[in-house]
């Protein structure tokens, strides 16, 4: 029974990784940029949700939607200010800018509210269900269902809508897409908006599930989500979901085996192994680099 319980713990953790990883992977897929500021958008989302619930007395779902909406705008603003000008610069320049933006967001937040943690208010009367000897709390069911709904919604947007079609086209070939009359700038902005909204949602869910939020909370989940994205195959949307879940479960199982102090190390070992043996990830095709 203990193992099933650990699996449940892992899936809850994994669904948060997956939601953040989606933003990484979408942005990478479209402009080949590892957006290191993504973990901080997650943090901003958590704080928007916190203020919405604690100060403005909103319920969970209005707070979630508000955090998603504001993070979407925030993501687009970051893209327009910091990344758009670097679209034709070297990839390393954009990468370093992303790290700079990340630090700017973290320390601006600390400047305004201090580095002390805040505790998320209880939004649900937390109930636990016992199914076959496994304790499942109502919050973990909620997290999982919100995460799955958002992922299904994302699949729908990417495959069934016009903007999704444009996103796929731009990620395939920017110049050809432009020649076909697709507004590349708007498409990229839309990608940032959707990815950041998912990170914002992950932030609120994280706050409700783990209670403690602080201005540097995005760093580790951001890196873990990056690993998840690479694990699934960066640039591939289903890969991010599977990678996130898998990473969460692996971390839980490593802890369950009695190596709880090696949990973070396990994540990085996975990153190294995947980069050595299958750099394109689980879902990646071994496409030859075009020269």
């Amino acid at each position, binding site marked *: *029974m203990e193992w099933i319980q650990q699996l449940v*713990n892992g899936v809850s953790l994994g669904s948060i990784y997956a939601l953040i990883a989606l933003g990484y992977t979408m942005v990478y897929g479209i402009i080949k940029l590892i957006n290191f500021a993504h973990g901080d958008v997650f943090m901003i989302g958590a704080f928007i949700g916190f203020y919405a619930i604690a100060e403005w007395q909103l319920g969970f779902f209005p707070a979630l939607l508000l955090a998603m909406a504001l993070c979407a705008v925030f993501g687009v603003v970051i893209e327009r200010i910091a990344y758009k000008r670097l679209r034709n610069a070297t990839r390393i320049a954009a990468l370093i800018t992303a790290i700079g933006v990340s630090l700017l967001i973290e320390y601006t937040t600390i400047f305004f509210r201090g580095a002390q943690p805040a505790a998320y208010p209880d939004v649900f009367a937390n109930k636990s269900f016992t199914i076959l000897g496994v304790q499942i*709390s109502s919050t973990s069911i909620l997290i999982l269902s919100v995460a799955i709904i958002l992922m299904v919604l994302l699949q729908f947007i990417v495959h069934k809508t016009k903007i999704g079609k444009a996103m796929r086209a731009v990620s395939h070939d920017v110049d050809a897409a432009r020649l076909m009359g697709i507004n590349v700038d708007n498409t990229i902005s839309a990608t940032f908006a959707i990815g950041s909204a998912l990170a914002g949602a992950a932030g609120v869910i994280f706050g409700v599930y*783990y*209670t*403690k939020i602080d201005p540097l909370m995005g760093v580790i989940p951001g890196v873990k989500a990056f690993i998840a994205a690479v694990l699934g195959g960066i640039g591939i949307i289903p890969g991010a979901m599977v990678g996130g879940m898998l990473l969460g479960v692996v971390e839980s199982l490593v802890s*369950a085996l009695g190596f709880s102090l090696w949990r973070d190390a396990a994540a990085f070992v996975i990153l190294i192994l995947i980069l050595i043996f299958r750099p394109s990830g689980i879902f990646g095709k071994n496409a030859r680099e075009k020269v």
Partner: protein
Amino acid sequence: MKENKKLKKFGSLLVASSLLTGVLAGCGAGGDSSSGSSSSGGGSSDGDTIKIGANLELSGNVASYGSSIAVGAELAVKEINDKGGIDGKKIELIKVDNKSENSEATAAALKLATQDKVVAMLAPATSGNTVATVQIANQNKIPIVTGSGTSPIITVNEDGSVNEYAFRTCFIDPFQGVVAANFASNELKVKNVAVFADNASDYAKGLAKSFKETITANGGTVVEEEAYVAKDTDFRTQLTTIKSKNPDFIFIPGYYEEVGLIVKQAREMGITVPLMGADGWDSPTLVDLAGAKALNNTFITNHYSAEDPDAKIQDFVKAFKAANGDKAPDAFNALGYDSIYYIADAIKRAGSTDGEAIKNALAGTKDLSLVTGTFSVDKNHNPIKSATVLEFKDGKQVFNSKVNP
């Protein structure tokens, strides 16, 4: 070309704005330090005042500890001076802000020793900062007393030699583990215990070690040991393992940021047994993180409780409330207050303000009755004193019992 120009403009804007932020931050820090270092009283010479330095965390990330010690110390200085001082000489407290940093703590100690020429010093509130000042104390032969630095290495070096000029008012880390284990065996009568410790902190590891030794000696069994590292947020996997071993009691030495989450997650997972920790739990943030309900049936060891019915403690609480707008004193206030009385008592018995004489008097302190307990100093310069066990009831710390060493 046009794109390039725009880029430059943007770049300079970014640089300018980050510079501005830096300047603003610098201003804030500067303001704090200038207000922190103030000296009370006029420029009277060594003849009629006794200068005691206070090297404390008045700004920075553990500012709340240092500031609380300062408030307690000031009350003690005022009381002693109102009663005529030490042998007719008034105490002058010279406060210096060490910004919660080791290097600043060393610099502050050097300034107090060489420029202000103090006769003794209150050392910083945290163990790390205090250790950074021990060398200065030994070199200048000026005794230091830390109110709340609980790490054993402040007074005893790793090779077992005693730092001659370093003293403390609080008990040391391992003692809290012993008290918790005895409380668990004798009061709660538990046999099977689990330990869940912060593996990134010497404080927590020291407590866990002494707890395990004592509980085993008392006939208990440690059924599971798990560890976490500071800044973790997910403890459910370790708690699942602990729960599967069915312990009657879980000892969780650590600091409030993680402990708050551990307690919350443990209760959510249906772990209802008593949980216990130490003074690292003592923060209002703990209640915010864990929730008042989850904290029921948890215990901590601490230096003192404002609710202790002891007459000496109640007199102190009354005097403190009168001086500080009805705010109840916390453990740091009490330790700061006691540290001044500890130093004053030694100066009085030494009959001189010579560093070596004061040091010998501090080391020879016996049965000194203070707010945080009556104590005698052992050969390692650590006080032998009682600890207080507190229980959380609906988010409030309630006095449970006093445990003697």
